[in-house]
């Protein structure tokens, strides 16, 4: 079932708007991420979908049905909390079967379905254990199985991976994606981790200060950020930003006159800064020069700090043999992708439209180009 918000606002005391007149449609059968820094309104949005909160203004639809006034139970949502909230006194199987027990499903039927769900999330060997005997990842799996047990119209996951260590987080995000694809249940996933969102989601809604910044696929978000907030929030290392006034003369030949006068900030992805002499790269936008500040190698990554336009910017499109000495001038070039100009209010003014067939550039591809 798709979820539609129509002009939804939420204010706690009629003064502070947590959510400000937002409208969107979460498509059916897909995995959608709500992404943003803490306090941006993403958990509030999730609680509005679940029915644990009701909006001060606006309408919420599940499919054609207006559910604005309905509570969590009537909306039939499945929810997974950050700390899993498994019932500590019940076994894994009892935990999974609990929603069905409450819905008065016959015992034999619910045990059968419970076992199927346990198999789906790969905890079928732990059925008689108590939650405290499970690892964090296993508890997460059980929580997902329990949320799926009542065949929810929508599955909601509130920062489900935050309590796991880094390796398990990567494993579990693949698992959540697999489970979502196998069951086809419309899933909404809240996170503050942009990398997690990019890896897991079919589309991402970036929220900040109670407003939707951009709602599109992960790659479009990376390749075509609508505004400076999205550009800075998505991608690691964080996109380089330079006051446009410092460097605008270098770009005179590339950008239109209006951008030349309106642009206030230029943002350049680290992988878009490549050696000027790279023989394999035919797609350079323009050659530039700066000063090499420092370089560090971290395994497969080489990170170069260089001074350009009065700012220290980070480049990871270099190999060690491309580098000069620290403190010496360095020639470099920009690739056409991953360079954006934003105006005073943070909106992207250049490039105006980006052709869809430009494939996203991954840092690794540039390194081996």
């Amino acid at each position: 079932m798709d979820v539609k918000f129509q002009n939804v606002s939420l204010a706690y005391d009629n003064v502070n708007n947590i959510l400000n007149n937002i409208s969107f449609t979460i498509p059916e059968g897909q995995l959608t991420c709500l992404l943003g820094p803490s306090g941006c309104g993403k958990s509030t949005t999730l609680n509005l979908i679940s029915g644990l909160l009701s909006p001060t203004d606006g309408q919420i639809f599940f499919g054609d049905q207006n559910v604005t006034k309905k509570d969590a139970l009537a909306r039939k949502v499945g929810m997974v909390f950050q700390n899993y909230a498994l019932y500590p006194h019940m076994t894994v199987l009892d935990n999974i079967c609990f929603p069905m027990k409450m819905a008065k499903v016959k015992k034999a039927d619910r045990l059968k379905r419970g076992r199927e769900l346990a198999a789906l999330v790969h905890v079928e060997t732990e059925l008689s254990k108590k939650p405290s005997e499970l690892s964090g990842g296993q508890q997460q799996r059980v929580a997902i199985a329990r949320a799926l047990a009542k065949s929810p119209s929508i599955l909601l996951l509130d920062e489900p991976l935050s309590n796991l260590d880094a390796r398990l987080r990567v494993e579990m995000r693949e698992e959540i994606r697999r489970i979502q694809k196998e069951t086809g249940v419309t899933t909404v996933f809240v996170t503050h981790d942009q990398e997690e969102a990019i890896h897991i989601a079919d589309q991402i809604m970036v929220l900040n200060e109670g407003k939707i910044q951009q709602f599109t696929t992960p790659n479009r978000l990376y390749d075509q950020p609508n505004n400076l907030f999205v550009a800075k929030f998505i991608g690691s290392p964080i996109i380089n930003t330079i006051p446009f006034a410092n460097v605008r003369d270098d770009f005179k030949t590339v950008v239109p006159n209006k951008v030349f006068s309106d642009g206030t900030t230029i943002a350049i992805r680290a992988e878009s800064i490549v050696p000027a002499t790279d023989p394999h790269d035919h797609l350079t936008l323009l050659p530039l020069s700066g000063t090499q500040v420092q370089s560090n190698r971290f395994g497969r990554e080489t990170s170069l700090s260089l001074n350009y336009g009065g700012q220290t910017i980070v480049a990871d499109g270099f190999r060690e043999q491309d580098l000069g000495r620290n403190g010496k001038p360095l020639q470099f070039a920009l690739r056409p992708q991953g360079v954006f100009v934003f105006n005073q209010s943070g909106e992207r003014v250049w490039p105006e439209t980006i052709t869809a067939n430009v494939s996203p550039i991954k840092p690794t591809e540039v390194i081996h180009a």
Partner: protein
Amino acid sequence: MIKQHPTIKSTLIAFAYLAPMLIITLVFNIYPIFKSFAMSFYTKYDFFTDKVSALGWANYKFIFSDPDFYLSVRNTMIFVLGVVPFSVLLSLIIALLLHRVRFLAGLFKTAYFLPFVTSTVAISLVWQWIYNDQYGLLNAFLSHFGVHPIDWLNDPHWAMPALIIMTIWKGLGFNIILFLVGLSNIDKRYDQVAQIDGANAWQRFIHVTLPLLSPMTFLVSVTSVISGFKVFDEIFVLFGGSPGPGKSTLTIVFYLYQKFYSEWKYGIAAASGVVLFLLILVVTIIQFWYSRKHVHYA
């Protein structure tokens, strides 16, 4: 410092730190316990010279052929069965209400806790008035329902109920506080999840709150049972130093007290004390055995 191996010196230092408490415990707890065990076998004993002339089972033989002792065991059982279930249930209900009602919760908590900090003597005086057959509050209240005045404190049939009611009232406050602590330790999220899982308020109580509260329920039951078996001062004050009309509230500890202080039969008093100890032990073991299956420690 952390991985220090125990040496003679460090052990002695540890004992020096432990000594003050250890000595007090040994002198006033451990020694009397063993002494009273031993005393229960003294059949010929001079209390003032501490001279034991004969040992044997005579004290036990005596109490097990004494109808008063059987009466005291029976009364104690009735008292425990009368007090503990109602006390636990009532304090759980009140705690649940107080946990939900935020309005004046502090005032209510204080009011319920007051009996616990008030001396038993003062409480008993008030209850003697409440139970008075002619001027008492309880009979005045019951008369509205057409109940004839009951002579609570002088009728052998009503003395035990009167004692039970007062004891429940007195212990309520402490049990409520314990239950409130238990309730506030339960993560609110379980309730939220259960709500999403489709459980109504009653189902949430039965399937979530009650199991998660079980360690505290267990604690309250065990302590209530133990203090129930040891009941004495409430009886002493409520019935003016007598074991109730017609020995109707003669309990084991009261029996022990009478043998020791009124009749100077130390051996018999000690023997009844040992029987009480064994009774409490057995009941507590049964409770622990039961708790293995039914108490969930998160």
